[in-house]
C-alpha cells in the first residue's frame, strides 16, 4: 500500500470518494444548474409552487423515462430500450379508454396496478427477447417499439375520453409541494430500495464485464432480464405522469420520448458500453433535456431550433463526458 492509494480511503477524503462514485454526473448537474438559473432569469416566478409544478409536470414523463432507460443501458452488452416511448403511449390510451368506458374503476387502487402491470409485462417481454433469446437489444426493442406503437394505435378511445380527475392533481401543486414531484420521488424511492439489494452490484458488474461476472457467479441472464422489467415498471410511472399532464388519450404522445430519454441518459453520464453511470446523473440529464425545450419555448425561439438544440446539447454533453472520463482516468493513473 502506497501513500497515494491511502489518500483516497473514505475516512481521510470523503469528498474524493463521493466524487469517485458520482463524478460521472458532473456535466449533467453543471448543465442543470445553468439551465435552472437561465429559467429563473427569464421567469422571475420560476421558483413559486405554481410555476414549478407546471415545469415539473412537463418534465416528469421524460425525466422518469430517462431514469427507466438508464437501467438497461447500465446492464451493458449494447443494452438499450427503444420501446419506452410507445409503451408510454400504450399505457396512456389503455388506461384512459378503460376508465372512461367503465371497464375499469377510475380509482387509484385500480388504475395504478393496471398501469404498473402493463409496464412490467412489457418489460418482461423485452427482457426475455434480450436476455433469454439473446437478440441484440437494439433490434429486440426496435421490434417491441413497433409492436407497442401498433397496439396503442389499435386502442381507439372515445375522442372525448378524459383521464380520472385524481390523476390530474399530480400535474398541479398538492398543498405546498409541486404534485409532479411525487411520481419522480416514487421512482427514486423504489430505486433506493433496489440499490440495497445485491441486484445493484450485479447490474454494474454485468455491465462492466459480462464474462468476468459470469465466472464470478453473477446470474447475468436474470440480472439483464430484471433490468428490463424494472425499466418497464418505471416507464409505467412515466406513463401515469404523462396521463396526468395531458388528461386525455393520445396514441402518439409518448413516441418522441424514446430518443429524448436516451439522450437524457447519455447526458447524465451513463456510458452506452455499460457499467458506468447511474440514476443520479439520469435525473439531472432528464430534467436538463426538458429545461432546454422550456427555455427555448419561453424565449420564443422557433420550434425548428428545439430539435437542433437537442442534437447540439447531446453531442456537446457526450464530448464533455468523454473528456471528463479521460481526465479522471489520467488523474487516477
Amino acid at each position, binding site marked *: 500500500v502506497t501513500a497515494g492509494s491511502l489518500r483516497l480511503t473514505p475516512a481521510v477524503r470523503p469528498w474524493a470518494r463521493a466524487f469517485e462514485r458520482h463524478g460521472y454526473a458532473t456535466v449533467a448537474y453543471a448543465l442543470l444548474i445553468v439551465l435552472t438559473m437561465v429559467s429563473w432569469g427569464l421567469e422571475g416566478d420560476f421558483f413559486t409552487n405554481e410555476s414549478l409544478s407546471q415545469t415539473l409536470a412537463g418534465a416528469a414523463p421524460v425525466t422518469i423515462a430517462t431514469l427507466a432507460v438508464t437501467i438497461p443501458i447500465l446492464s451493458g452488452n*449494447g443494452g*438499450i430500450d*427503444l420501446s419506452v416511448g410507445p409503451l408510454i403511449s400504450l399505457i396512456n390510451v389503455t388506461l384512459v379508454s378503460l376508465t372512461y368506458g367503465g371497464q375499469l374503476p377510475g380509482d387509484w387502487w385500480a388504475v395504478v396496478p393496471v398501469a404498473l402491470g402493463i409496464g412490467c409485462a412489457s418489460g418482461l417481454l423485452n427482457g426475455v*427477447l434480450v436476455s433469454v*433469446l*439473446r*437478440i*441484440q437489444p*437494439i*433490434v*429486440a426493442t*426496435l*421490434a*417491441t*417499439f*413497433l*409492436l407497442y*406503437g*401498433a*397496439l396503442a*394505435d*389499435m386502442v381507439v378511445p372515445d375522442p372525448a375520453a378524459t383521464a380520472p380527475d385524481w390523476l390530474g392533481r399530480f400535474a398541479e401543486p398538492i398543498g405546498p409541494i409541486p404534485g409532479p414531484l411525487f411520481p419522480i420521488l416514487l421512482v427514486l424511492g423504489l430505486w433506493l430500495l433496489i440499490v440495497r439489494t445485491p441486484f445493484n452490484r450485479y447490474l454494474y458488474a454485468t455491465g462492466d464485464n*459480462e*464474462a468476468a461476472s*459470469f*465466472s464470478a457467479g453473477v446470474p*447475468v*441472464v436474470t440480472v439483464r432480464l430484471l433490468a428490463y422489467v424494472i425499466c418497464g415498471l418505471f416507464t409505467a410511472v412515466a406513463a401515469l405522469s404523462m396521463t396526468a399532464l395531458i388528461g386525455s388519450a393520445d396514441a402518439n404522445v409518448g413516441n418522441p420520448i424514446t*430518443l429524448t430519454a*436516451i*439522450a437524457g441518459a*447519455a447526458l447524465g453520464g451513463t*456510458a*452506452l*458500453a455499460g457499467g458506468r453511470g447511474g440514476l443520479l446523473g439520469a435525473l439531472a440529464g432528464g430534467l436538463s433535456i426538458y429545461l432546454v425545450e422550456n427555455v427555448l419555448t419561453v424565449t420564443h425561439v*422557433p*420550434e*425548428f*431550433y*428545439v*430539435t*437542433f*438544440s*437537442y*442534437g*447540439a446539447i*447531446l*453531442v456537446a454533453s*457526450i*464530448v464533455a*463526458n*468523454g*473528456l471528463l*472520463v*479521460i481526465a479522471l482516468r489520467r488523474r487516477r493513473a
Partner: protein
Amino acid sequence: VRTLAPSWAASLPRPRTAQMPTLLAWASVGALFVAGTLSIEDFASLPSVRSLLILGAILGIASAGQTLVVVMGGLDLSIAGIMTMTNVMIPHLMATRGFSAEAAIALTLGISAIIGAASGFTSRILRVHPLLITLGVGFMLSGLLLAWTGGAPQGSAPTWLTSAVSAATHMGPIPLPPVVAVWAGVAVVMWVLLNRTTFGRQVYALGASPEAAEYALVRPVRVWTIAFALSAVLACVAGLMLSGFTGYGDVNSGDPYLFDSVAAVVVGGTSLLGGRGGYGRTIAGSLILVEIQTLLVGLGVEPATQDAALGVIIVAFVALYGRERHIRLRM
C-alpha cells in the same frame, strides 16, 4: 490442438456454420417471394418486381454504409438525417440559390463526407458510443434543415434523377430502371472494399477485437473516420435515389431509414457485435424487409397491424439465425 477424432475425419467436408446466416437469409428471400406469389395476384409480375427492386435499392444503398460501420463494431443513426438532407438540399439549392444539379450534388456529397468523418473521428477518439454521436448529429441536421427551409423546402428533383428511379424507365433491353444498376454498382464496390482491400480487412479486424487490431498496427481512429465518411457518402447516394423517388424535397423523407437501415443489416444476418457479416447478407435483408412490407400492403393489412407484424417478423428472423451465443460460449 489434439482432438479425439481420427485423422481422416479432418478431410471430410465440414458444415460451414459461418455461411448459415447467408444461406438462410437468401432462402427467406425466396420463400417470401413464393409466399407473395401464392397469396397475392400479380406479385411476381414485372411491374411488381420492378417496384420491389426500386424500394429494395434505396434501402439497400442506405444500409451499405451501415453494414460497413456495423462490421467495424459501430452503429450509424445519422443515415436518415443525411438522406433527408440530400433529399431537401439539392432541390432547395437549385430552386433558391441557382445551383446546377451537379454543383448541388457535389456540395451535398462533400458535406456528407465531412459530417460522417467528424462523427467517426469524435466517437473513436473520445471512446464514446457512435450511436449517441450519430443520433445527435441526426437531430442537428433535421433541425438545421427545418430552420433553413422554414419547414417548406422549395424546388423539385432534376428530371433525369426522377426518371432514373421511375419504374417506367428501362436500361436498354433490360426492363429495369437505372437505380437497380446503381445498387449493383454499390454492391460490387462494397464487396471489393470489404474483401479485397487492406481497409476492408482492418474493418473486420477492428470489429472482431479492437485490442488485437491495435497490436496488428491497425490505426483505429483513421479507420473509423474513413468508415463513417463512407457511410455518410453512401447515405447521400441513397438520399439522391430517394429524391428521384419522391420527386421533391420532404423534411421527413429519410425518417423510416433511421431504424430500417439497422433492421436490414441485422435481418440479413450481420451481427451488431461486429467482426462478422458482409454486404451480401444486407442485400438479402433489404429484400426481405421490402418483400414483407409489400406483402402486408398487398394483403390489405391496416397500417398499425403492419407495424406490429413487422416487429414480430424482425424478431422471428433474428431469433432464427442472428442470436448471440450464450455467455458460456463467448469466453
